[in-house]
């Protein structure tokens, strides 16, 4: 009896959902007919005819829209991967400083975290780009031309690695932002380790820094990992704000293509698929880490 009732409810809800979708799709097809755009992906093979400043693989404007999208996806990956590494470093250092003993470091870490977490990322990105990079007059050299040169054209490292101002400000903005969030995750993880562990390593004569690194962090890792994963996923999603600083990531290129071809629905679907795929990669990667860590801890 009860099984039958739940079946009715499900069929009812299923019908409602189906009718809702049907009406929406009907409207969509009317609107597409009205504007003479049929749902298809053939346009992907037509030449893109726009240039890109940054492309990890060879690209020219006569290449297809599909290739341009792929380049955009690679550009996104380039940002996400580097930001992911640096923000993890920043996050761990800040998180440890935040829970450490030095009051000066504590205050600085705390004010960095609140300042970054309480202001919008978009504003920060525009700050890094327009104020941080474009306002540089001439070149700033640290400590000599061989190592690091900053200018409004971007960053030059070791004399031959050139990073554009767009890429650099995006990476800096994302890492500074994500770093603050990771720091909180790390702090949470460290606080979850019993206080007795500190006394333990102090009593065996380990100093503060190596104690935290060798004793506390490994124990905190299982608590840190899930939070870290979700911050990485956020980082990937936030990288789409590249459009605000003129960097050609997957969203910016989709936007240009949708504008040129008018294929809003198809472009949107491709954008969604590429993000689902990206998320899958990051999740798989983190699962892999998780496995390694659990294995390591069992041993």
């Amino acid at each position: 009896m009860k099984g039958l009732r739940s079946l009715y409810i499900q069929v009812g809800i299923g019908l409602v959902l189906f009718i809702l979708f049907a009406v929406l799709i009907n409207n969509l097809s009317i609107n597409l007919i009205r504007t003479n755009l049929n749902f298809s992906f053939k346009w992907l093979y037509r030449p893109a005819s726009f240039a890109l400043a940054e492309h990890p693989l060879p690209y020219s404007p006569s290449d297809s829209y599909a290739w341009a999208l792929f380049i955009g996806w690679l550009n996104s990956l380039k940002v996400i991967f580097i930001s992911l590494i640096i923000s993890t470093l920043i996050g761990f250092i800040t998180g440890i400083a935040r829970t450490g003993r030095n009051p000066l470091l504590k205050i600085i870490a705390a004010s960095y975290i609140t300042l970054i977490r309480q202001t919008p990322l978009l504003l920060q990105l525009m700050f890094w780009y327009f104020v941080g990079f474009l306002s540089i007059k001439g070149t700033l050299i640290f400590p000599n031309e061989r190592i690091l040169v900053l200018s409004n054209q971007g960053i030059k490292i070791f004399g031959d690695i050139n990073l554009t101002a767009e890429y650099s400000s995006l990476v800096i903005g994302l890492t500074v932002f994500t770093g603050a969030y990771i720091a909180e995750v790390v702090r949470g993880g460290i606080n979850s380790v019993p206080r007795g562990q500190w006394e333990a390593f102090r009593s065996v004569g380990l100093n503060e820094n190596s104690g935290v690194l060798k004793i506390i962090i490994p124990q905190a890792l299982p608590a840190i990992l899930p939070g870290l994963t979700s911050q990485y996923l956020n980082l990937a999603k936030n990288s789409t704000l590249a459009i605000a600083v003129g960097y050609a990531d997957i969203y910016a290129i989709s936007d240009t293509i949708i504008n040129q071809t008018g294929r809003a629905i198809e472009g949107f679907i491709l954008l969604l698929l590429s993000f689902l795929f990206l998320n899958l990669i990051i999740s798989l990667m983190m699962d892999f880490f998780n496995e390694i860590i659990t294995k390591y801890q069992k041993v």
Partner: protein
Amino acid sequence: MRSFLAGLIGASMLLTGCTTKNEGPKSRLDLIKQRNEMVCGVSGKIPGFSFLKSNGTYKGIDVDICKAFAAAFVGSPSKVQYRTLTAAERFTAIRTGEIDLLSRNTTFNLSRDSINGNSLTFAPVIFHDGQGLLVKKNSGITSIKDLAGQAVCVGSGTTTEQNINDAFEAISLPYTPIKYQDLNQVVAGYLQGRCAAMTSDRSQLAAARSGFKNPKNHIILQETLSKEPLAPASIGGDQKLSDAMRWVIFSLITAEEKGITKDNINKKVEIAQNNPQLKQLRRFLGVEGDLGEKIGLDNDFVIRVINATGNYGEIYNRHLGPNSDVPIPRGLNKLYTQGGLHISPPFN
């Protein structure tokens, strides 16, 4: 996600049959009249064309064209909603019906006009422009060849982007395009030295330069990269709306040709009413005949338009004339009688 998509496709297959039952779509013009208000897409960020002033109103030649349409379609130049659109979102906005028409520095070209392209219909050109390059005077750059290998700031999703690309491909030299979403960022990028040059339509370059601290330190190169006839646009396949738009613009040009201005329009109407022999003038002003009705408007639409905005020359001088904030010499934008390109077919 997969089952969701499958559902979508299935549902759409089932329902494509239903769509044909729907009768032919209504003209947007009727919708505008019914709503008693018109939605006009503008840029809002280009001095002289459409610009947001500190008191919250919009001003510029594109805005005045919107006002002329509104005066003709719904009877008052103030019954307009302005939507500020970036270059990249403007066509999607027109396609989705978010705006009725576009009056936003839009270049008239084949792929935008055609059914397999953006599927728009363009009204007559309101400003003949050409793409140019703005560089710093002391940079020593005198032609596009000097820009080889350098960065050029450009707005994304524009024909400008394609033209600069074509220009560099034609001379087989490399360059780096730095693309921004809107012109104000392009200007910022150029002024702050991210790029050696910025490219856009000459009118926009002139407009932007007029706002610089030292306009004289910047020059627009002689080379013109393209023809850029700027025109208002509406969705393709809506003849009623596009006809009405076309003749409103022609009425602005004809009015200038006939010397009809905002100040003397009432006098001209009186003259037309009292002189039955002035057939042309009477038809134009709607005193006689039914020209207005033929395009789905009131017969006196020209009077309302001129009362609202003045003729084409007046609009031009108000926003781009020598005493305006953004002086641009009229050049190609003179009437054909004075050696320019603006000409209107007869109101017969």
